[in-house]
């Protein structure tokens, strides 16, 4: 596999076509564009109820230039299982089946089907594009919403913490789990390309900043994603056959002094406006604990 060092080396082909109706500054839309650049167009996409069932536009038009099976909210992984089985029956080996689901469809209503498909070792890539709430229905809280965040169903801020989804997936002993963010396109492309070469269930967790729901200026999506990583609120790592590895720039952030205070990330987003100083301290403490865990995992490497 050829190494990519700069975004200038990325494919010029576009399979997310012009005319899609994602919000301005949509992190998931940037992610989908990158996904196609990484995987090419010999891809079948399964899309459950989520922002991406709206983004391509309505019948008889679509802006996704690959075959798409739109599907029920909770059924992404089960549907992909059927497509994978059918392709095997038809002797087709050069097509990548991709589940492309939001955080609600992954953390909450779709976790059963995803867990089942992973346990069966279904040969597909499952990508969760995570904007930390039910974006398509107008920002209701999900299992992915972080502590303290405003959503329309947690107007005073969410009281519970976000599920640790990549580790839940890693506990299924699948060959590849990775986190990424479209603010780091090389990291994103590398991980998708790597996933494409691996057999079995591969889980990619994408932080997809959402100006509409997170309440920040639409020009700041890439910056917000970078701050998420620089503060350690989002960590770039891979778990390959149970082996944990931080990826740059998260690698160097194991040194606490190199991490920006989480406040810098939180204060840019209006969804966190009701956080008290005490809340922010609590989040910082949890985050530092998470990083202790990453340090241990990095030194022991195996989960």
């Amino acid at each position, binding site marked *: 596999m050829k190494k990519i060092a700069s975004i200038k080396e990325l494919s010029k082909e576009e399979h997310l076509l012009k005319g899609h109706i994602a919000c301005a500054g949509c992190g998931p839309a940037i992610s989908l564009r990158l996904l196609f650049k990484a995987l090419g167009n010999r891809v079948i996409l399964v899309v459950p109820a989520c922002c991406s069932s709206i983004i391509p536009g309505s019948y008889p038009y679509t802006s996704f230039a690959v075959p798409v099976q739109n599907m029920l909210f909770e059924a992404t992984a*089960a549907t992909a299982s059927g497509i994978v089985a059918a392709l095997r029956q038809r002797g087709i080996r050069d097509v990548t089946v991709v589940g492309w689901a939001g955080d609600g469809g992954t953390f909450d209503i779709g976790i059963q089907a995803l867990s089942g498909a992973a346990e069966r070792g279904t040969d597909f890539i499952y990508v969760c594009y995570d904007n930390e709430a039910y974006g398509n229905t107008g920002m209701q809280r999900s299992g992915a919403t972080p502590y303290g965040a405003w959503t329309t169903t947690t107007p005073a801020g969410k009281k519970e913490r976000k599920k640790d989804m990549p580790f839940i997936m890693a506990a299924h002993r699948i060959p590849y789990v990775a986190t990424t963010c479209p603010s780091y396109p090389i990291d994103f492309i590398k991980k998708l390309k790597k996933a494409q070469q691996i057999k079995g269930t591969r889980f990619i967790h994408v932080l997809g900043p959402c100006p509409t729901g997170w309440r920040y200026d639409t020009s700041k999506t890439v910056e917000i994603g970078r701050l998420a990583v620089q503060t350690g609120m989002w960590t770039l790592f891979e778990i390959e056959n149970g082996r944990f590895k931080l990826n740059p720039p998260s690698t160097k952030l194991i040194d606490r002094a190199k991490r920006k205070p989480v406040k810098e990330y939180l204060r840019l987003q209006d969804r966190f406006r009701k956080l008290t100083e005490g809340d922010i301290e609590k989040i910082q403490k949890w985050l530092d604990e998470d990083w202790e865990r990453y340090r241990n995992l990095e030194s022991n490497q195996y989960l």
Partner: protein
Amino acid sequence: MAQRIIDTANHIAAYATKAARVQVIAAYPITPQTSIVERIAELVENGNLSAEYVRVESEHSAMSTCIGAAAAGVRTFTATSAHGLALMHEALHWASGSRLPIVMPVVNRALGPGWSIWSDLTDSMSQRDTGWIQVYCADSQEVFDTIIQAYKLCENERVLLPAMICLEAFILSHTYMPVEIPDQEKIDEFLPPYKPKWFLDVDNPLSHANIVSPEWYMEFRYMIQEAMENARRLIPQIDKEYGRSFGFEHGGLIEKYKCEDADLILLTIGTIGTEAKIAVDNLRREGLNVGSARVRVFRPFPKEEIRGLAESTKMLAIIDRGVSFGMEGFLAEETKASLCDQKNRPLIAGFVAGLGGRDVTFKTIEKIAKKSSKWILAGRVEKETVWVDLRE
């Protein structure tokens, strides 16, 4: 060479997947469906069936896996029962709306609470509005034949709908009966491989099941209605063609027994239809002019055939092993709806019987017929719906 075997309807259903050369099977176990999926597992693992077998973690996923596989262009199969079917409900709509020819035996079982594993048609009857073709079988031969017929019907371009093949818990599912399995070459001739025009294909990328605005939604729904009407015409043709090839016919939409001169027709569905034939013979020996008609296909509903029966008889006694609470038995309800424009309607009474697996034998049916005959003499029915053998 055709083979004559003695086995349960569930095992027969499993053999039908092999005969139909099904390519993807996805299933989740539920009593009393289990022996279908167990026997399929044996067929697959012994190399007798070269299908992909996806052992999913729920019925919702079973149907979703079938939807994915069928959309990717292969012949698919699942089977379920009662609560499993209820859990599938959302995906049932998605399957028919996606116009995918999935075939699914439903082993009819009562819904809880309290837990009951015995026969009752309420599970599949309450899915009648999902856009699925529904066929109700009366014996194991019909189960086998109908699965083969269903693929031919559902994969027809003018239909492209999924079908439930309903068979009652234990009465059929676990009961050993002789069945003839036709020669594989002849089945292959009758049922060629599934070759859909549209499927998930990277060389011809199409988007399936996109969001659709009010400008188009109704047209798609009308097309499902049209497909059902096409199925109504094709079902008797396919049943006849099957009969010519293999020697078994099952009455198309409705199987009639001694109805021509009958003053009273017992209208049934499922295995009660078999018992009703025995009752008819016994009653005729006693001098009662009775016939029976078994509704084989509930969706599309055989309206015309029922109107035809109603024209020549004095009374329809409709026996339902299932009930729509707040209304009446499902078959009674649909029959009355079909007859609303009929001049000279016969007397009609509904009989709810056998819920939760209570036996409905020919003797039960004879009682129903005798009560009905009294009402014919009186010129009116005393009770719109009778709950048969109810403990007072």
